[in-house]
């Protein structure tokens, strides 16, 4: 104990103002708690400020910038040019709007927002250091910790903010690099590769695994690889990045090494939970070997401590954090709830887009289990044809009793199918439920109906199986 340490009492403390933290604060406030929220950077967290939102805005801009290429065959000639300072201003503007919106909601909910970095000093106490270095001690009744994650750093390729940068910096570049090499072929890597390829960079992805999007369905991954290659993206699978010297990134596998000319290297090797900086072990919580916080189904990490979002095991996705925020806020307020989703949708905004929800019968974890699946190619979808991209497909999976358990799709606009897919799995919809639901024509949603008809042995726009 620090001698002379004076603390103020707070009721429910939320640490972190991202999609997990601010949602937890709003939920707990609605349940009658007096909430204080500590955020070290900006309200909205990674997702809103340096993640999902700016990246999606940038993806839209890249799509616009590349319209000239995609519209050629459709009879439209467009020439485009990109002014990055204006792009950055636009993105920063929309981010600020959204962040202000959340601050407004927190204000209305009477959440006390404290700017600073919190660190547990005792099971029921944190020290909050503000920018000026002043320390404030807060003693709380319950705490919900949502400090998120940070980009993984590679010791042999330390980021310098100029030549070697992380994913956050890649969202706000002053100019478009000529030769961009991305270390990491996960969803962040393939999204940023799509962006910069469309903006005109020569992009190379280096991935240690033998496929893009490790852990995803191999058919989707292969299809994505083809799609990205057709955008001019170079893909080196099974290679690790060794060093960067004189505008060359050296990569190697067990047999050989080669050099990739690069004037910018992006380290997009994934994210790691921010469990250490907040010193959460001091609260009585325990950590897994991955650095994630161990929690129960209520997201409880210790008697009065809850951890949510990227801090807990599972995909580091904003919507997972938001869902856990409700569970943790309920549990902290004595309302029965549990984080037991049947599925967590995963969406990749590459070109083509990818969505995967629930059971993927091709993945190892479901090997040996019996599922039925039907793959409906978008070449038979009228909507896909009108969108000018019919290379994708949707795969719908049911169990032996006909209950829908999984979806995988790749193609234009398939990200928007995540909602129906998740609802079907969460509500244990059957093949007949999908067939009995009228899907609007012509939409990509119809492809779900078509695949369900295929599962029932009655395909409509395909002959035979």
């Amino acid at each position, binding site marked *: 104990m620090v001698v002379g340490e004076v603390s103020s009492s707070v009721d429910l403390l939320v640490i972190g103002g991202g999609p997990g933290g601010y949602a937890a604060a709003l939920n707990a406030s609605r349940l009658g708690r007096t909430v204080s929220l500590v955020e070290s950077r900006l309200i909205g967290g990674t997702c809103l400020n340096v993640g999902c939102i700016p990246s999606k805005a940038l993806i839209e801009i890249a799509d616009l910038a590349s319209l000239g290429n995609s519209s050629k065959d459709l009879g439209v000639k467009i020439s485009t040019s990109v002014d990055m300072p204006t792009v950055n201003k636009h993105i920063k503007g929309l981010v600020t709007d959204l962040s202000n919106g959340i601050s407004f909601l927190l204000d209305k909910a009477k959440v006390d927002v404290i700017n600073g970095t919190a660190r547990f000093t005792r099971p029921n106490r944190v020290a909050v250091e503000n920018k000026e270095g002043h320390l404030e001690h807060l003693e709380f009744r319950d705490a919900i910790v949502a400090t998120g994650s940070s980009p993984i750093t590679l*010791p042999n390729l330390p980021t310098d903010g100029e030549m070697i940068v992380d994913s956050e910096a890649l969202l706000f570049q002053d100019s478009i690099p000529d030769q961009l090499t991305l270390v990491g072929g996960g969803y962040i890597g393939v999204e940023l590769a799509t962006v910069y390829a469309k903006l005109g960079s020569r992009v190379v992805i280096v991935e240690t695994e033998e496929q893009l999007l490790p852990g995803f369905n191999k058919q989707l991954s292969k299809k994505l690889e083809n799609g990205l290659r057709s955008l001019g993206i170079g893909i080196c699978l099974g290679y690790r990045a060794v060093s960067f010297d004189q505008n060359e990134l050296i990569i190697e596998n067990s047999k050989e090494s080669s050099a990739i000319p690069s004037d910018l290297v992006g380290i997009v090797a994934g994210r790691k939970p921010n469990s250490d900086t907040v010193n959460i072990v001091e609260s009585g919580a325990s950590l897994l070997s991955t650095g994630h916080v161990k929690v129960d189904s209520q997201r409880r990490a210790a008697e009065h401590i809850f951890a949510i979002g990227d801090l807990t*095991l599972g995909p580091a996705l904003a919507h997972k954090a938001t869902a856990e925020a409700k569970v943790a806020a309920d549990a902290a307020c004595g309302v029965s709830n549990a984080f037991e989703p049947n599925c967590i949708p995963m969406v990749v905004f590459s070109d083509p887009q990818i969505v995967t929800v629930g059971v993927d019968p091709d993945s190892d974890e479901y090997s040996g289990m019996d599922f039925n699946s039907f793959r409906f190619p978008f070449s038979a979808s009228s909507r896909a044809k009108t969108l000018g991209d019919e290379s994708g497909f949707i795969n719908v999976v049911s169990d032996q009793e006909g209950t829908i358990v999984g979806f995988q799709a790749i193609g234009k606009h398939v990200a928007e199918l995540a909602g129906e897919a998740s609802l079907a799995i969460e509500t244990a919809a*059957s093949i007949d439920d999908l067939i009995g639901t009228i899907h609007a024509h012509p939409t990509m949603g119809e492809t779900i109906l078509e695949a369900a008809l295929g599962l029932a042995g009655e395909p409509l726009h395909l002959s035979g199986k």
Partner: protein
Amino acid sequence: MAFEFRLPDIGEGLEDAEIVSWYVSPGDVVERDQSLLEVLTDKASSELPSPVAGKVLKLSGQEGDRIKVGDVLIEIEEPPTTPPQENSLEEDLEIEESKPERDNSRIEEQKNFITVAPKVKASPATRKLARELTVDISSISGTGSSGRITNDDVRLAAKSDNTSSRPSSPIDSEQTSSFMPERSNLGFMEPGEHKVKGVRGVIAKNMSAAWTEIPHIHSLDEVDASLLIDFRNRLKKVTRQGASKITPLSIIAAATVRALKKYPMMNGHVVGNPAEKIIIPPSINLGIAVASESGLLVPVISEANSIDIFELAEKISELVELARERKITVEQMQGATFTITNYGALGGRWALPIISLGQAGILGVGKIEDRPVAVEGKVEARPTLPIVLGADHRLIDGDVAEAFKNSIMNDLLEPLNLLVTE
């Protein structure tokens, strides 16, 4: 360093305990507060939680062995107590990251996470309902299309969790609720020879001694339970702590306490075999027999003579729940001066219960059911409660037994008597 967990003093004057079963084996990793083993002392079985987290190194003693208080039960290797240092965590990650295998571990973690998702065939709203009704939804088989679990399935499961069988009378479920739900393994035992241990061993010893020593007499009767049910229904609405816990059993218990006050001999017992002295205790400690998974347990409501019907109802509800969950302590099962056994909850009508040593009587309560009763020359269906009084004939003659039983029956026919405080 290994932590030695010694048998703690879990009951007053306890010297030793029997190891009923081990929940862990050497090599297992246990968490703090995880149950390590079940021990039996006198007539209470307790689960002993681990005071530390770590790896089990050694178990001292086999199931069935007796262990003295203070003797080592189990050795547990504790992990280093210092929390992981930030730096080492950082280094671990970075070392991992610099290796090509890093993605594997990441994927493994993600896979494990996704596999965790229970593919429960119920909508989120139905799952929420199950949580609210504290029903384990994974144990329900759905009646909806393709086995989907509906809200009705959950409500039905919640109902059957509280009743072991379909209620046949309005108070059947309540009468039953003081007992455990139907067990699937009831009456099952592997063919072969079995050691008599645990609660079973204690029951065997006590019952044999009681049956051998006490000359039992039994008197059987039936009471019209219409007013009892009406009284219970009206009492439940009273705004008073304990009112919601009023059950037919607690009303019968209150009537019994009143009768024990009138006939202190029924609250006494004979010491010695055949008889050396008679003891009449100053207070009434009422035992309530409860079926638990490991056998019959009898929680005791001490000083039942000094509390009213509401407090009595509350105490019965609390202790029965503890016994059913086997969380009851030795002290909470000691010192009964009279026992009530409610075999009606198991569906029984008539039984001849055995008196425990150290008591002179036992009241058996059968199932309340509509039965034909002669009312003013006509046969009518009326809710009827069968009761049986067992008494130790060394101390109790027929006249005392009948008077005692009549006192209980009169109060059940006119339950307002039970609200009179003397």
